[in-house]
């Protein structure tokens, strides 16, 4: 058997093992392997390498089932959100038409009566430009609430804290935050920490549970940086969105929010416990240029 035969066969060996050769070519490889022990041994080695290759590259992902389940749930939640507007498209069009008529009517009424301005909306000051700091902050609070609903509330009731998992999830810069904040605050225990993305922003996200309530602590880069800051004192801001309360502070380059469905006073009391250590940690990060 010529050396060039063996060389030709070895070039065909991988497509042969992939079952991608024509029947005739495949048969000629098979015939050669049955007559040439060297090429048959090479074929066995390649089969074994493929088996090891598959094991090596699937092992970590297969050991990551917890995160895989979380990821699957988050995607399904995001899909539900995505589907909702389509399902209510007709209602939305009707609402749009109604609001257009209402706006035209109000405009006509205001022009004709030159009356006082209309009262602004509840949380989003409609009298301000969309880029005003107050509107941006309200949008950040709303995003935090939505992220709390999509991410924190998707964890199963029996989810418990795992230091290694949380350290991996938070990335090295935020991993020490766990010890800075502490694992327990009153009845609330830390169950999860990770970096998560929502609305093209990345949050460091800690999740506490207790008394049947879930509490999120979010740290995000402040979207309003570079824009005029609101003239607010450095104290805790509070906002409400549907059944959720947000207590937040601005450290300069970051915004820290505590989100829960607790009554407003309880959410604020918890925020007062958690925020001082968090602010201190973030300021150290900011001073270190992180």
């Amino acid at each position, binding site marked *: 058997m010529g050396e060039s035969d063996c060389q030709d066969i070895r070039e065909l060996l*991988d497509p042969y093992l*992939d079952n991608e050769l024509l029947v005739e070519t495949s048969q000629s490889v098979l015939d050669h392997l049955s007559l040439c022990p060297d090429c048959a041994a090479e074929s066995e080695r390649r089969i074994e390498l493929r088996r090891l*290759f598959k094991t090596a*590259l*699937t*092992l970590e*992902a297969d050991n990551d089932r917890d995160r895989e389940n979380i*990821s699957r749930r988050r995607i399904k939640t*995001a*899909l539900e959100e995505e589907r909702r507007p389509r399902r209510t498209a007709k209602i939305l069009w009707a609402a749009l038409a109604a609001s257009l008529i209402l706006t035209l009517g109000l405009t006509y009424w205001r022009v004709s009566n030159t009356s006082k301005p209309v009262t602004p909306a509840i949380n989003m000051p409609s009298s301000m430009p969309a880029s005003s700091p107050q509107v941006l902050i309200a949008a950040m609070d709303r995003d935090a609430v939505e992220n709390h609903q999509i991410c924190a509330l998707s964890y199963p009731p029996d989810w418990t804290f795992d230091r290694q998992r949380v350290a991996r999830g938070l990335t090295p810069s935020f991993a020490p935050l766990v010890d800075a904040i502490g694992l327990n605050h009153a009845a609330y225990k830390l169950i999860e920490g990770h970096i998560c993305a929502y609305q093209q922003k990345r949050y460091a996200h800690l999740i506490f549970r207790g008394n049947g309530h879930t509490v999120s602590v979010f740290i995000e880069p402040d979207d309003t940086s570079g824009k005029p800051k609101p003239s607010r004192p450095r104290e805790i801001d509070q906002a409400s969105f549907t059944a959720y309360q947000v207590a937040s502070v601005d450290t300069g380059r970051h915004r820290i929010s505590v989100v829960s469905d607790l009554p407003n006073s309880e959410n604020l009391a918890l925020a007062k416990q958690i925020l001082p250590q968090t602010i201190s940690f973030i300021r150290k990060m900011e001073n270190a240029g992180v």
Partner: protein
Amino acid sequence: MTNRKEDFDRLAFAHFRELRRVALRVCQDRETADDLVQETYLRAWRSFDKFEPGTNCRAWLFRIFFYVHSEYRRNQARQPLLFSLDYVKEPTHPSPANTPSDVTLEEIKLAFAELPEPFRIALLLSEVEGLRYREIADALDIPIGTVMSRLSRGRQLLRARLAALSSKTGEPGSLEEHKKSGRI
């Protein structure tokens, strides 16, 4: 709407694990991988009307994923996903006549990580996920001949790298010294 939703969930989520596994390997960062897989599913849902029932859903999802990944890479202003094979350096060690048989899982991971991205992706899709050449071509939007050449070159480079790692075993500081699990 309900049928469409059920069809999508049944067809698309059947490939969730494979897609996420590839994403984890391609992105090498779990958060980014999960973000890109989520974006893939959202885009797949939006264009599900264009998906023809009976055609290959897995290749379709991979195609969307690689498009999303390529877009992500462009936004990150890093090197584009696909580049000319002319840039690929020749291996410092020639491809061995025989495939090395004395290798560990760690060495395989190391050798794989050093391959150029187009070869890594082709090998992942073929050997780990079991896609046919035609499916890989569809997923990456490249000709089937390119798939074959990437697989061939990728395997050659992998074998050469493994042979080089094997030959270093036993030397001071080599992988051999750190192996706890022993040879496989």
